[in-house]
């Protein structure tokens, strides 16, 4: 079937093109929705469904090729480099938002408060403004709010994610030792921890909106809080879905002790999500 010497080059593919079409439908819908047209939602939903179907098709092809042994060791290395640098690009995406948080806390808010040579900014614009974090800015945008404390749910969530990092490593050992129970229960635990995390996060948002008056519109604190935790939560959700897929693949007997790039890629992704959370916990919730 396969020649372990050859670098596999698929000879044609329809998936990327179709995927782009779906992405464009999704984005046109989103833009219309944002612009306030009613049609937006349904176009967006269509795009999303198409995107999911096509992504499923694309990955199915890749999985069956992989199971058929089409990929030799060199292809495996290409995949690894691909995943590593993809994760790095995600790190840089989060860096932009962490940068915004840093800038707001260390520069723009102190300046609005009249620090150093910026006294006149304060005097001319908002003389009554005193800079204390958390802040929703000199005009008290969104009204008074209560900040999200690091204890409670965020601390529990930290424990959950850290534990899930351990369980996924445990599962990895199971895979390497060909211990199916360890593998599948390890993954099941990881997925559960991931989804519980997302559940807690959703609860926290509801709590913030209904009890704390902490909203996206609550000035720079609300903006950075929801943007960072929101994108992180989205990545956790994606990661948990990918882990679920990997779990089902393991249950079907995919992967072997020395050949399981798909597993490792998702595990790396999971660790990345974990590390970002630590950054969030320290800089968004704690400090």
């Amino acid at each position, binding site marked *: 079937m396969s*020649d372990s*010497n*050859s*670098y596999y*080059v*698929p000879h*044609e*593919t329809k*998936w*990327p*093109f179709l995927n*782009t*079409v779906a*992405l*464009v439908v999704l*984005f*046109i819908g*989103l*833009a219309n929705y944002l*612009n306030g047209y009613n049609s937006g939602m349904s176009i967006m939903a269509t795009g999303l469904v198409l995107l999911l179907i096509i992504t499923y098709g694309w990955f199915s092809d890749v999985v069956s090729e992989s199971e058929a042994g089409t990929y030799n060791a*060199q292809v495996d290395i*290409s*995949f690894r*480099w691909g995943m590593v*640098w*993809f994760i*790095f*690009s*995600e*790190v*840089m*995406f*989060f*860096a*932009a*938002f962490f*940068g*915004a948080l840093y*800038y*707001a806390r260390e*520069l*723009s*808010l102190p300046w*609005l408060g009249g620090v*150093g040579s910026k006294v006149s900014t304060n005097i001319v*614009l908002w003389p009554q403004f005193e800079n204390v974090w958390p802040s*929703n*800015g*000199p*005009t008290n*945008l969104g009204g008074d709010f209560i900040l999200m404390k690091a204890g409670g749910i965020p601390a529990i969530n930290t424990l959950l994610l850290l534990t899930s990092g351990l369980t996924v490593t445990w599962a990895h050992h199971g895979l390497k030792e060909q211990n199916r129970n360890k593998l599948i229960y390890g993954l099941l635990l990881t997925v559960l921890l991931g989804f519980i995390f997302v559940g807690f996060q959703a609860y926290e948002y509801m709590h913030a909106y209904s009890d704390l008056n902490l*909203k*996206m*519109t609550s*000035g720079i*604190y*609300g*903006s*950075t809080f929801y*943007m960072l935790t929101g994108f992180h939560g989205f990545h956790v959700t994606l990661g948990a879905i990918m882990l679920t897929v990997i779990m089902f693949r393991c249950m079907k007997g995919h992967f072997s002790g020395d050949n399981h790039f798909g597993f490792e890629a998702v595990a790396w992704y999971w660790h990345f999500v974990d590390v970002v959370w630590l950054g969030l916990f320290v800089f968004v919730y704690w400090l």
Partner: protein
Amino acid sequence: MSANIDKLHDDHHHTPSGIMRWITTTNHKDIGTLYLWFSLIMFFIGGLMALVIRAELFQPGLQLVVPGFFNQMTTMHALIMIFGAVMPAFVGLANWQIPIMIGAPDMALPRLNNWSFWILPFAFTMMISTLFFESGGPAAGWTLYPPLSLQGGDSMPFVILSIHMLGLSSILGAINVIATILNMRAPGMTLMKMPIFVWTWLITAFLLIAAMPVLAGAITMLLTDRFFGTSFFTASGGGDPVLFQHIFWFFGHPEVYILILPAFGIVSTIIPAFSRKKLFGYDSMVYATASIALLSFIVWAHHMFTVGMPLAGEIFFMLTTMLIAVPTGVKVFNWVATMWRGSMTFETPMLFAIAFIVLFTIGGFSGLMLAMVPADFQYHDTYFVVAHFHYVLVPGAVFAIIAAVYYWLPKWTGKMYNESLGKLHFWLTTIFVNLTFFPMHFVGLAGMPRRIPDYAVQFADFNAIASVGAFGFGLSQLLFVYILFDTLKQKVSAEDKVWDGAEGLEWTLSSPPPYHSFEKAPKVE
């Protein structure tokens, strides 16, 4: 590593024909060709917009377009030229050349390669279609500064989402380039034996992966500020419009090096070939490129000297910016030293490469002037800046792309282009490019602001000259298109080793190369 011959032969029978071949292709040469044609089309669309700008600026006063539309033209011109013309051209060259320069059967991730290309036409259709909206296209400049960009019409989310798509395409393309270069080199080709073009692309790919996601972050914040009530860029909520400028330029300055590093690679390939000497200081070229790339992440605020940064910031960014001149100087020195006492000939690619060195250096010098804080207070947002970046981008990046096309076209097509037409194209282009952009230095120093459709009468003469130059430049590029088609029609075939002084694995392949490049990995000494 050798490709499975049986399987490959099998493939030929299945290769779809017609349009489906191009939609479904995973072949690096097909995809390279798609990228290059796409880039050429975008070059002309962006060029037409530039001509609208220059036509309006031919005389003081408002003649042809309303100011709002003028602003849409400057915005779209820049977005199209940067993301649609120059970047895709470089990716096209990477696709064609990297596998055949390092002895690989194809790019490392062929399906992803197809995806990175096909995102582009869709994204640009979406972006350009906004020009036909009732509220018009984006008009806040390619830098999308808030608060102005937040006040745009319906085009705003479309433009932002299309830029997200462009970023996705670039990141996927960059990942593919890195995986290919790190993993697909023929045995014996160590990193320090790689062709210099491959080196520059490797470094460019890292810049892309580090910079594009930051742009994605910045424009996402624009989107939420406008539609979800966040206040990243609103002072009343504790944010700051200047924050956007920091994040944007943290992407933006590495981006300008994304637009020039592959050009450095091309020039470093062509100059030795026509000087019949080895590249002078190969190692120092590699290190210079890497240091330029690293430095490019700590100079960004030289675009914002006038926003009112603390003095320490102004000085830091001034010094780091000037530091970049050192590795850039190393490069220029090495190119000149390569030509020194070489047996030089001046075929079209060489002409464009030499013009690159001279004219890019002019752009480098005006960059140094802009890098001085007190001087920049005078120059900022004037036509002097426009002159600067057009000197580095047109006779810089674009000349390198044209040089590369002339240099490798015989390899790609198996046909030789018409040398005298090529030379004619070179002279027309070079004369008109200077006619267009040199006068901009003068009006800029005298204080003519950029991105304004009208100007004071004392700037009239130089503007008229620039407009004539621009139309001449645009028309000369029609000759380029003619030469391309003329080449395809030529009867005589090109030799495998088209240029006697050229070096590299690509010249060991036939012209045109076989559909699957190196089925058996070559040996590199």
